[in-house]
């Protein structure tokens, strides 16, 4: 087990270096490309047009990519720990879709500006309904089938609700805004967005880190976990609240971004020897790296309309999901769980 600890520390160190590199690249890339030296100089002295671009445009965007990615990676790992299943992911449970529907509802008909606190609160409420409903339906020992079917239903309902808002949108600007929630993007986000979302992200990290012992004990199933002193009701509440707060706030500032929570834990699980508690922190770091890299990619690809980062994560994430299903199909068919 000492070896596992050493491997985890090595992994965390490598990921930290990777994140620093990605953050610098993210400050460099855009319509006005900057060298690493110029980007860092502009960041620290803030002079001239480069200072304006780096500090006001690229820095908030980079920080949002890092924090949202970390939140999504951690949410995925925590949900997987709670449900003992590597295929659990907030987007498959309709969480971002529900958050986006609720957030667009507020924007479309609530007449609040996009940086109002009402938007993340609505997003969190939407995510809470879907994740909470799902965990309630999944119940004590529901298998993957019930869980995924319930997630499908929540996602479909959120989609229908969003379609209704589009349908009834009083003007085309609102329709455009709703489309933004659906696609997910970090374009033109300001430091205000970060300020409004960061407290929710931190709350979500704390909530999801609290049941460390529970994730591990749940490896043996719910009965054994309960007999080891784990309070299952409290654990479910913490994870549901943590995922809802994190995903809801992320959607409120950046729209619906999926599949980071599925991919990130998968990439590091082997290194931490499948320990469902030890996988949390590396999953958060990989999530941050994935979203930052995706956001760099959408800026680097030359296109008339900037690609939306949520489109990219879905384009990469869904085939990844299919590959995972394909690889694990024997276990999935065989197991009653």
């Amino acid at each position: 087990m000492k070896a596992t600890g050493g491997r985890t520390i090595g992994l965390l160190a490598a990921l930290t270096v990777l994140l620093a590199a990605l953050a610098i690249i993210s400050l460099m890339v855009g319509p006005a490309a900057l060298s690493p030296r110029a980007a860092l100089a502009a960041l620290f002295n803030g002079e001239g047009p480069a200072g304006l671009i780096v500090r006001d445009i690229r820095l908030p965007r980079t920080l949002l990519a890092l924090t949202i990615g970390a939140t999504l990676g951690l949410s995925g790992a925590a949900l997987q720990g709670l449900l003992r299943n590597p295929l659990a992911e907030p987007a498959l449970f309709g969480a971002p879709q529900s958050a986006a529907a609720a957030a667009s509802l507020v924007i479309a008909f609530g007449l609040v500006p996009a940086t109002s606190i009402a938007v993340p609160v609505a997003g969190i409420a939407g995510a809470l309904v879907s994740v909470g409903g799902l965990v309630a339906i999944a119940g004590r020992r529901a298998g993957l089938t019930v869980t995924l079917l319930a997630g499908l239903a929540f996602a479909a309902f959120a989609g229908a609700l969003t379609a209704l808002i589009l349908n009834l949108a009083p003007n085309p600007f609102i329709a455009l805004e709703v489309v933004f929630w659906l696609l997910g993007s970090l374009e033109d986000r300001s430091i205000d967005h970060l300020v409004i979302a960061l407290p929710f992200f931190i709350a979500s990290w704390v909530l999801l880190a609290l049941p460390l012992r529970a994730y591990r004990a749940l490896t043996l199933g719910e009965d054994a976990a309960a007999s080891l002193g784990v309070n299952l009701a409290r654990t479910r509440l913490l994870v549901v609240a943590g995922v809802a707060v994190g995903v809801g706030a992320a959607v409120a500032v950046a729209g619906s971004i999926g599949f980071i929570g599925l991919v990130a834990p998968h990439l590091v699980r082997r290194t931490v020897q499948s320990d469902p508690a030890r996988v949390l922190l590396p999953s958060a770091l990989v999530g941050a790296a994935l979203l930052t890299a995706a956001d760099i990619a959408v800026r680097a690809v030359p296109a008339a309309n900037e690609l939306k980062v949520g489109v990219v994560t879905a384009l990469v994430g869904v085939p990844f999901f299919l590959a995972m299903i394909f690889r694990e199909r024997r276990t999935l068919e065989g197991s009653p769980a």
Partner: protein
Amino acid sequence: MSAPLLTADALTVRLGGRTIVDHVSFRLQRGEMVALVGPNGAGKTTLLRGLSGVEAVQGQLTLGELGRADVSLLERAKRVAYLPQGHVFHWPMQVAAVVALGRLPHADQFARLSPADHLAVTNAMAAAGVTQFAERAVTTLSGGEQARVALARVLATEAKVILADEPTVSLDPRHQLVVMDLLRRAARAGSAVMAVVHDLTLATRFCDRVLVMDKGKLAGDDVPAIALSPERIAAIFGVDAVMVDTGEGRVPIARHPL
């Protein structure tokens, strides 16, 4: 005789409005291995779940010097270890890490292990004969090996009371004997062990006492020779049984349904 490690007095468990365990009273003493037998649906599993804190119970449950009122989830988990039926391992964790899960009731908020915890894990792996698998992923082991790992996890808690639900189910004959022997050794080392056993021969050979459950109530609490006599087996299970001398004592063999 010293104070019992566990005393159940009129223990009752209701699930969804139905009474599954109905005013069951018994004691578990230090050093003894007790079989819990009874037909399917008699409430054996629910009784174990109630004793181990998975299910809420009514009535009086006393653990050693602790009264029921004193027992928090964690305090109970340190004193009562529970091996559910059909050991499951949801993640391909290393065997040593799985066995260390038995130390969770003793560990801190961050699940860190002390030197005493590590020693308990090492001892439990040695006792269950899984030390050579310590670094393997638990899901790559055979069913019998996994059963031993599950048992090592329970032993690692160093609980005074060990409750095992059908620990020999789906094991080959050799592993059935190995597992029963391991449980009996844990009892002799100073714990009290209660195991749900469907194999009446195994129950008679390995256990000091047999609790018989039928329709939620305790229908017998005796030494095996009395609790599992052919007459009692016929009355409780509806099975015709004979006593056979193995050379190491007489055991019941079920022949055919009545």
